[in-house]
């Protein structure tokens, strides 16, 4: 059964208790997907001193390669350091061999105190930005801030990656195996003896079996490409391809027609009826292609 929770109920960590479950914040974390962790290396805007802080990152674009970083407003130093377009920083991806050190960089130490020294992490010069990189991290992304804004309890910065340094060993290692070591992910908190929180970090584990699928364009591939791929591999005949493309063309001309249920008059027009038929046909076409049900796909196209 599905149970609905309001935003405030999702946010509530203490003292709510789920009956039969001792961990008070258990429900909260059911709603919080783990996200990749990072060490943000930035420079103080006034003194130029190094600041290192643990945080998490999010996706933006792949080419150019950009990522989003979010800093809590309570992390005064790192928030201040990245609130400027053109500010430089390094996003270092920590592995599970430096979990204690990663936590140490999350300590909210006085401005100017270098958390890398406290955590005994080794810094080395970056190539393209002034902020240094972290030797113990297998990947260091050298970044510049392109955009930032306030986002409620946090500041968000969009970072463009100018270049990176990477452990030589990664160049020959199976990339899936490397993911079992880094980056670590912020997973959740558990309680300690003093009813405080203990942060938990994870690394990726099992890779799922995902079938090879067409279209060969992969992520974001279009139906037109997919049909062409099936023709090129001989899984569709030329006649079937033409039929599918004709349907597609007709559907595209009808897609903007408002269905009867939503039309202003509520009266089903001929076009609305045809739209519904084509909608079912295109959906069926895509479904049979997606699930590799080729016999049924041939029957559908030949009947059409």
């Amino acid at each position, binding site marked *: 059964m599905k149970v609905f929770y309001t935003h405030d109920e999702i946010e509530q960590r203490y003292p709510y208790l789920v009956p039969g479950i001792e961990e008070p914040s*258990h429900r909260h974390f059911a709603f919080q997907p783990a996200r990749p962790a990072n060490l943000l290396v930035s420079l103080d805007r006034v003194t130029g001193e190094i600041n290192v802080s643990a945080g998490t990152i999010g996706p933006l674009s792949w080419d150019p390669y950009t990522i989003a970083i979010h800093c809590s407003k309570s992390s005064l130093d790192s928030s201040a350091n990245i609130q400027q377009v053109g500010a430089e920083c390094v996003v270092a991806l920590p592995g599970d061999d430096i979990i204690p050190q990663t936590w140490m960089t999350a300590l909210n130490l006085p401005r100017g105190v270098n958390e890398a020294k406290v955590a005994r992490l080794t810094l080395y010069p970056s190539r393209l930005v002034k902020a240094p990189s972290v030797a113990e991290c297998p990947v260091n992304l050298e970044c510049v801030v392109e955009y930032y804004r306030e986002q409620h309890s946090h500041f968000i910065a969009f970072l463009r990656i100018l270049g990176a340094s990477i452990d030589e060993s990664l160049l020959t290692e199976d990339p899936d195996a490397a993911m079992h070591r880094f980056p670590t992910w912020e997973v959740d908190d558990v309680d300690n003896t003093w009813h*405080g929180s203990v942060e938990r970090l994870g690394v990726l584990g099992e890779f799922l079996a995902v079938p090879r699928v067409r279209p060969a364009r992969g992520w974001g591939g279009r139906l037109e490409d997919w049909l062409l791929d099936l023709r090129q591999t001989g899984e569709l005949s030329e006649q079937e391809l033409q039929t599918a493309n004709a349907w597609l063309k007709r559907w595209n001309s009808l897609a903007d027609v408002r269905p009867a249920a939503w039309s202003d008059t509520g009266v089903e027009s001929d076009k609305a009826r045809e739209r519904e038929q084509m909608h079912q046909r295109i959906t069926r076409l895509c479904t049979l292609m997606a699930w590799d049900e080729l016999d049924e796909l041939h029957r559908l196209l030949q009947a059409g």
Partner: protein
Amino acid sequence: MSKRYLTHEEFFDDTLPPYATGERRLACLGLQVPFPLTYLVTMDRHTRDVRVTTATLGPFSWVPYTMSVNIPLGDEPTVANLRAEGECVMALPTRTQARQAWIASHIYPAGINAAEVARLTMAPSHRVQVPSIVECPVNFECIIEYVRMYHGYGIAALRVVGATLDDEVLPLSREALSQLYPINYVGERVYGDGTVSARLAMMGTITPCPTFPVGHKQGWDTRVPTWVADLVAEEFISRREGDLVMAWLADYERMRLDPHLAERQDLQDKLTTFAELAAWGEWEALHAYLGIEPPEARS
């Protein structure tokens, strides 16, 4: 550890075929940060057609709870829906939905619902008109705060106004939960015959970070005053030692924005060494550094 530098241009070596497995390609794979995967459910304002696609999500803020998704601008119908409509749903796929999530990642014509193609079931949501996905244990019902066009993607900031959770999920341990959802998108694997598969992974080993005395008792947001107070209370350091560190801190705070002062540098070194020795639990070295006789009970 020997490091190799790569420029951004070297991340994307177009001279390599997409299925190349040379070192540059491996480097690219190593550089691609994995992110959690979500179905994004939107609705066409004009036709009311439901549209589902797959996106990666990222954290934006905790209070209120907001997240971001990135949608390629090539998926024009979804981007248009995000910009025109004020609402959407993010539904987290389970490990059994790897194929369905991959199917939903393709760009279907406007008006075609990838959830139907992927044989997923829609159900009404509670706070938004956009429906939820029955097979997903978590459905976030969201208000779209803004959409920013950025390097070929629409980046949407989504504020969670409520969510449904399968009640059978709640009793599961966190470890069991992490093996159920979400799926994490690591990248693509391109084969020599031109076919593609997604690299999707579940969370693996989960390790606790250190707790007090590495930081204050409350965990997050350790600041020196509360850390020192907790160390004194639990007799890791004496009250006199704690007072000394707090005096250093007070003096440092007065002059911290003048990096040319020698005294400031001295105080910064002292505070750094205090934090380092305390974080690493090197108490004898810390007592010696502070130069005050430790309490009788500990000597």
